[in-house]
């Protein structure tokens, strides 16, 4: 069944974590606003990656990692057009230009770099294709995902900290009556001014973000800054209903044996429906 969704809901780091935990094999296809990426896995390990139209053939990867000179790259690209990556790798090893480790390390480094770039993608759609494998003529690697996940998690940390500081965007903001810092000494950016202009106990933070055309992360950053500066405070939006008086518990079960008997009666009844 489908493993697909939106990067707004699942970050690349979370997807890598899922693939790692579930030992998945297949290809994660991510369609970002400007380009698409394909990252292949085998048994939960990174095997191959391609981003946009970027040349990821072995010769280009080796050139990027300074294992081939520009002249050597051109020579290979003109004279060895028909040679597959696997054949080229064997030729280079047999000719003594480089070792198998040099080739694998270069590929691992390149594929890792592709995944790192994906960490910055926050918009786009993803799908996991179980049947899609890397092209046959390409060399694949087997790279544990844990370190990449940790790296991605660090980038997520800022987002999560902001979520902790401002857990709900359904609250409103109100200017503090006597701010600790003089407003005149404060330099606000254009974005901060845009937010400030909408601050009103009737407007939720979400509504402000929508009016100022800001993402959740952007509005949280700015609101956090304003809170830290002691300019505003978070308040319940005006007009929001207050929590009603707590209802009295309905369960009046006396003891555990009675409770068990009650649950067993419920089980019998549900089974009979």
């Amino acid at each position, binding site marked *: 069944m489908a493993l697909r969704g939106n990067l707004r809901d699942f970050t690349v780091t979370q997807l890598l974590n899922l693939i790692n935990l579930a030992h998945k094999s297949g290809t994660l296809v991510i369609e970002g606003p400007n380009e698409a990426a394909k990252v292949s896995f085998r048994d939960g390990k990174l095997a191959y990656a391609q981003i946009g139209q970027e040349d990821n053939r072995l010769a280009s990867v080796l050139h990027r990692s300074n294992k081939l000179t520009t002249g050597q790259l051109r020579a290979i690209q003109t004279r060895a057009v028909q040679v597959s990556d696997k054949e080229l790798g064997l030729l280079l090893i047999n000719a003594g230009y480089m070792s198998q480790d040099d080739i694998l390390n270069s590929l691992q480094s390149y594929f890792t770099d592709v995944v790192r770039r994906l960490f910055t993608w926050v918009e786009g759609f993803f799908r996991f294709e179980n049947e899609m494998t890397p092209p046959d003529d390409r060399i694949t690697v087997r790279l544990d995902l844990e370190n990449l996940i940790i790296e991605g998690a660090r980038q997520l940390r800022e987002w999560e900290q902001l979520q902790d500081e401002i857990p709900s965007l*359904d609250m409103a903001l109100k200017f503090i009556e006597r701010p600790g810092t003089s407003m005149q000494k404060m330099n606000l950016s254009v974005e901060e001014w845009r937010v400030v202009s909408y601050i009103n106990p009737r407007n939720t933070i979400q509504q402000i973000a929508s009016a100022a055309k800001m993402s959740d992360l952007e509005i949280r950053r700015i609101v956090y800054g304003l809170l830290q500066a002691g300019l505003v405070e978070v308040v319940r939006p005006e007009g929001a209903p207050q929590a009603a008086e*707590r209802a009295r518990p309905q369960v009046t079960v006396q003891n555990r044996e009675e409770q068990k008997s009650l649950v067993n009666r419920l*089980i019998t009844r549900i089974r009979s429906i």
Partner: protein
Amino acid sequence: MQTVKMVVTGPFSAGKTEFIRSVSEIDVVSTERKVSADGERAVKNATTVAMDFGRITVDEDLVLYLFGTPGQKRFDFMWEILSEGMLGFIVMVDSTRPETFREARSILETFRAYAPTPYVVAANKQDMSDAWDIEDMRHALRLDGKVKLLPCVASDKTTVKNVLLELLYSILAEMDGGDK
């Protein structure tokens, strides 16, 4: 007459009303109104703003009430009230809408904080072609292996019964555990 209640919660449009409707012996008392927010209207036209209310009579002395919580976050002030005295709760998750998984997780945490009662998670709409696999959902929802994540189709009485029974078994198991 003794009454006990279970709460059916979950994000907006997860299928809570339909779940209760499948097993309730009375027409579900549902307070629905037209959806005002554009994003929500795209999903369904009416939503529960107060609560759904279903009933299953067990015998002359015992009645089970099923309460469905409002799915929209702006009514979350109702959750704590509804969670008072509940026997257990069910978190409904729409398997085809991964964008709601994070909210489902948040709702689950909130209800656990309100009352440490047993709970199960129902992966609804498992009959749809774009439904996520149960195990993928478990990872995505960050559910411990011990938490029951059950396939469900809210309109199918058999799967709804199974979810209710699994919750009751969990409640019973906890009582047995408490005895030791």
